[in-house]
């Protein structure tokens, strides 16, 4: 059996994946001096100065390229949302608006900011975790079944 499948099935998958995410973020910071905040990197494609766009595009291409590779190597890791199209689009818009307003998401605040014990990031992370938990609870209560 492919060792990647074994790792994914084992209880070490999340920790190993987390370490890989940490290494990628460390690479961006130590080599390039950039914070690995996905919402900021991707959002900057819209309004960053011209010379500041190329690395963002390269990184996002890497994300998608990694997705192409791993959706073949480890297809069981990829699921699709179970929500209806309307909810999916609403969710995407809320994530886009909220992370732009907050200047960061799970990666920029949740990983990079929390790791350097930034007060802003600790507050942001507590807020989006709490709101996410409440949204799941509300969705399950309203629909009357497991979400």
């Amino acid at each position, binding site marked *: 059996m492919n060792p990647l499948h074994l790792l994914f099935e084992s*209880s070490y998958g*999340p920790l190993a994946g987390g370490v890989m995410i940490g290494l990628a973020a460390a690479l961006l910071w130590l080599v390039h001096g950039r914070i690995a905040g*996905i919402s900021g990197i991707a959002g900057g494609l819209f309004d960053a100065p011209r010379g500041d766009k190329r690395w963002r595009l390269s*990184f996002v291409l890497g994300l998608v390229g990694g997705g192409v590779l791993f959706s073949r190597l480890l297809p069981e890791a990829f699921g699709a949302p179970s929500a209806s199209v309307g909810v999916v689009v609403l969710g995407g818009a809320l994530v886009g608006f909220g992370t732009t307003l907050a200047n960061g998401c799970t990666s920029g605040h949740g990983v990079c900011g929390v790791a350097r014990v930034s007060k802003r990031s600790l507050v942001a992370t507590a807020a989006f975790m709490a709101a996410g938990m409440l949204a799941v609870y509300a969705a399950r209560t309203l629909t009357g079944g497991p979400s």
Partner: protein
Amino acid sequence: MIRQLSFVFAGALFAAGLAVSGMTDPARVLAFLDVGGRWDPSLALVMVGAIGVYAVASAFSKRLRRPFAASRFHPTNQRHITPRLVVGSLVFGVGWGLVGYCPGPAIVSTATGASSVLYFTLAMVVTFGVTRKLLGRLDDGADDAGEAVDALEPAVTMVPAAAPVGLGTAAQAATSTSTTRTPSGASRRPSSGQ
């Protein structure tokens, strides 16, 4: 070229980590957030692994004058806990909890070509652009400050455009190296490779 490839590699490694950790499966993410139901706490270990590694890297970087392949670090210039930070994070959390994707896994999962992922990511990316445009208009002319200080932060600073760069860098230098640099010295350095 090698520089761009290293960004591609960092992106791909980040994507691999998201896949191996299970973050690219919305059902699993929703189970992690479902503390009142069938809670699956295993994804907390993703944070533990990522934060553990990054904390070491972040601490090590305080000994460096500059990154290995760039003229300076681009830290955030934001210091204060603002309503905007809290409201934005709450709104983000609701969207995350409705569908199960945060920005990284959404972008990575577009590779599967599943239509629902494409809808989510398209809505998210369009909203990035629209929100940045609106915020830029609200902040009225502070764009240069935002660009120069930190790419992660859209223009929000109230201080004159040129000041935050020198001050921010000087403050950082002061905390890390204490005596070697003065504020004026820091601001005289070339701002970056941009």
